C-alpha cells in the first residue's frame, strides 16, 4: 500500500459519515464534513508544517482532493490544498489556519493600490468585483489574484478576509456557491508576483479542477457499470446488451484518457516544471470527456438518474460546472492552441512532445 492509499482510506472513512446532499441556499456546504477533515489534519495536507500545514506531499493532497471529488464532498478542499495554500507559499505570505476554509479567485477586474502605512511593503487596497468565487460566503479567506498596480509589471496576490464581506448568492449547476465578492477599498496583505508566476497559478487552479473532474468521471463510470449490472430489463441485466456495452466502453475510453493526462500533468507539477500547457490540456481533455460520460451515464441510468432520488446528479451536475470553471473550456483551448504554436508554424510536433 502506498502512502496515498492510506490517505485515501482515511478520507473515505470520514466521507462514509456524510452522505452527499443537494446543495441549496440554506445549506450551501457540508460544514460537518469540513470539521471532521480539519480535525484529522486533512485540510492542511501538502502544506509544510512550519507554515502551519500538516506536511505531506503534493500526491497526498491530490489523493484527498480526488477522493472528496468522487464522493461529492461539498467542501473547499481542492481550492485550499491545491491552489490557495500553494499560492500563498509562492508569494511568501502567511497561511491562515487550515481549519478556516481559504479559497482562491481570479480578480482580473480588481484595481489594486499599494498602501504605505509605515509597516513597510506588503499592504494593498483592493477595489472591484470578483465574480465566480468558489465557496463565496463559506470561505473565511479568499486569495485573490489581481493585476498589479498601474505602472508595475506582473500581478498581486492578496489575502482577503472575507468573513465580513458581502457575497451574492450565485451558485453553479451543482449548487456549489459561486458568488461575486464586492471589494470597496478593502485593505489586505499581499505580494507582487511575476507574470509567469501568475500564469502558473491560473494553471494550478485549472489543474485542481481537472483533478476533480478526473475523479468524478471515474466514479460516474463505476456507478454506471454497477447500475448496468444491477438493473434488469427484458429478463437480463442492462450490461448484457451490446448497445449498452458499447456505451460503457466509450465512457471507459474517455475516462482513461482524462486520467492518463491529468496524472501526467500532476507529475509535471510535482517535478517543478512549468505546467501552463499541461494544465490547459488536462482541463480541455476533461471538459471534452464530460460531454460523453455525463450524457451516456444518464442514458444508461434512465429516468431515475434524471431525478434527485438517485445519487448520479451529485456528480454529473458538478462535471457540467467544473469543466467551465477556473477558466472556461474555450479559454484554455485557446491558451493551448497558441502555446503549441509559440515555437513557430513548423514546430507544432516538438511543442506537443514537450507539454508533458
Amino acid at each position, binding site marked *: 500500500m502506498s502512502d496515498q492509499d492510506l490517505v485515501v482510506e482515511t478520507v473515505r472513512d470520514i466521507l462514509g459519515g456524510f452522505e452527499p446532499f443537494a446543495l441549496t441556499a440554506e445549506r450551501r456546504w457540508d460544514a460537518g464534513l469540513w470539521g471532521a477533515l480539519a480535525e484529522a489534519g486533512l485540510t492542511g495536507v501538502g502544506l509544510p508544517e512550519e507554515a502551519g500545514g500538516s506536511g505531506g506531499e503534493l500526491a497526498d493532497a491530490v489523493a484527498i482532493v480526488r477522493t472528496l471529488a468522487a464522493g461529492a464532498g461539498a467542501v473547499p478542499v481542492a481550492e485550499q490544498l491545491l491552489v490557495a495554500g500553494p499560492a500563498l507559499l509562492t508569494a511568501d505570505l502567511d497561511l491562515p489556519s487550515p481549519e478556516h476554509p481559504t479559497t482562491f479567485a481570479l480578480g482580473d477586474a480588481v484595481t489594486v493600490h499599494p498602501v504605505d502605512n509605515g509597516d513597510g511593503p506588503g499592504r494593498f487596497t483592493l477595489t472591484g468585483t470578483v465574480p465566480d468565487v468558489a465557496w463565496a460566503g463559506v470561505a473565511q479567506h479568499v486569495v485573490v489574484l489581481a493585476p498589479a498596480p498601474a505602472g508595475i509589471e506582473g500581478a498581486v496576490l492578496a489575502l482577503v478576509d472575507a468573513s465580513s464581506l458581502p457575497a451574492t448568492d450565485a451558485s453553479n449547476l451543482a449548487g456549489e456557491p459561486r458568488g461575486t465578492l464586492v471589494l470597496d477599498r478593502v485593505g489586505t496583505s499581499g505580494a507582487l508576483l511575476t507574470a509567469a508566476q501568475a500564469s502558473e497559478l491560473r494553471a494550478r487552479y485549472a489543474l485542481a479542477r481537472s483533478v476533480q473532474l478526473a475523479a468524478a468521471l*471515474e466514479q460516474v463510470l463505476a456507478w454506471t457499470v454497477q447500475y448496468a449490472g444491477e438493473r434488469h430489463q427484458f429478463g437480463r441485466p442492462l*450490461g448484457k446488451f451490446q448497445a*449498452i456495452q458499447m456505451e*460503457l466502453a466509450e465512457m471507459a475510453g474517455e475516462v*482513461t484518457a482524462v486520467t492518463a*493526462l491529468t496524472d501526467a500533468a500532476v507529475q509535471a507539477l510535482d517535478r517543478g516544471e512549468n505546467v501552463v500547457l499541461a494544465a490547459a490540456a488536462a482541463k480541455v481533455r476533461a471538459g471534452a470527456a464530460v460531454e460523453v460520460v455525463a450524457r451516456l451515464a444518464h442514458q444508461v441510468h434512465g429516468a431515475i438518474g434524471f431525478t434527485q432520488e438517485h445519487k448520479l446528479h451529485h456528480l454529473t451536475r458538478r462535471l457540467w460546472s467544473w469543466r467551465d470553471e477556473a477558466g472556461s473550456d*474555450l479559454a484554455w483551448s485557446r491558451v493551448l492552441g497558441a502555446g503549441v504554436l509559440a515555437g513557430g*508554424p513548423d514546430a507544432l510536433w516538438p511543442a506537443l512532445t514537450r507539454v508533458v
Partner: protein
Amino acid sequence: MSSNSLTLAPAPRSEAAEQLRAEVREFLAAELAAGSFTTHVDTWLSGVDPAFSKKLGERGWLGMTWPKQYGGHERSAMERYAVTEELLAAGAPVAAHWIADRQSGPNLLTYGTEKQRQEILPRIAAGECFFVIGMSEPDSGSDLASIRTKATRNGDGDWVVNGAKVWTSNAHHSHYGIVLVRTSPSDSANRHAGMSQLLIDLSLPGITINPIRILDGGHHFNEVVFEDVVVPGDMLLGEEGNGWHQVTAELAFERSGPERFLSTYPLVAEFGRRVAETGDPAALATLGRLSARILALRQMSLRIAAALDRGELPNIPAALVKDVGTTFEADVIEEVRRVVDVTPSLDSPDPLGRALAEAQLHAPGYTLRGGTNEILRGIVARGLGLR
C-alpha cells in the same frame, strides 16, 4: 486509483528515449531537406520505400527491443515508442517494414524456431525483410474464428495450404506472411481450437497475389490466394492448435502503438501551419482541443509501452487505446473542416487541401483495421466485467 482493470500505471520518464527522439528528429529533418521523402497521411499503410526502411535498419531503429543475437538492439519499448512516434509525426514512408518490425518479429521471437529466428530476425532488423498479416478472409472479418483457409499434412510431413487471405497490406512488396490456418476441422463447441500459424514464404508456387484498390485508387491491399501451396513442415509457428492464443498475443503489439492515433497527424500539422498564419480564434481553439486529445493519447500509449517493458501483454488497455485513438484520427477531418475554408483534393495546390483529401479517403480504414472499434469495445466491456 483504478476503477476498473483497464487502468495501467503511469509511464516513467525515459531520458534515453528523449535523447533518441532528438536523433530521429535530426535524421528526419535531413531526409526531408534532401527530398528523400515527402510527408503524407497514413504512411504506415501506404508509404512503401524499401530504401528508407533500410536506412532505419542501418541506424538501429528496427528490431529495437530484440536481443542482439538476432540483430536487435536491446532497447526499451519506451525508446521504440519515441522512434515510431517521430516517424509517424513526420509522415515518413515506413509501410514496408512496419508489420515485420511491429508484430511479426516479436511473434517469431516468442514462437519461432531457433533457425527461423536466426535466419529472419536479423533481416527484419536490417530493413530488408517484410511481412504481411494473414488473418482476415473473404468470409471472415471480425469473426476471425470462422476462417476456412486450411493446412493439411502431406506424406512428407509438409503442409498443404488452400484458401485465401484478404486486406493483406503490401503483400506485393513482402517476403513472408504469418498466416492463420485451420489445421483441424472447426468444432462448434470450441471455436478457438484447431487453428495454427504458418510462416509462409510468399514466393512459393501456388500463391497468387491480386491487388485490391482502396478508395484513393492506391494499391496497398491484396487478396492472397493459396492453391495447394506446399509449406515445409518446419514452418509451423509455435504449436499446432495454438493459433488463436498466438494471434491474441500478437494483437497486443498490433493495437497498442502510436500509429493508432497518429495516422492523420500530418493533417494536424498542416492545420497548425494554417492557424499560425491566420490566427483565427476559433481555429486556435480547435487546435487546442485536438492537441489535448493527442496529449492524452500519448500518455495512454506510453503507459502501454511501459507495460510492455514490464513484460506484460496489456490486451484490454491496448484495445481501449486503439478505440479512442482511431476515433480521433477520423475526427481530425471534421474538426478541421469546421473552422477552415478548404476543399479537399489530392490535386490541390494547397497542402492542407491535399492532406485533408488523403485523410478523408483513408478514413474508413482507421476504425476497421486491426479489429473494428465494435470488437474493441466488446473487449473493453469484458475488461469492465460486463461479459
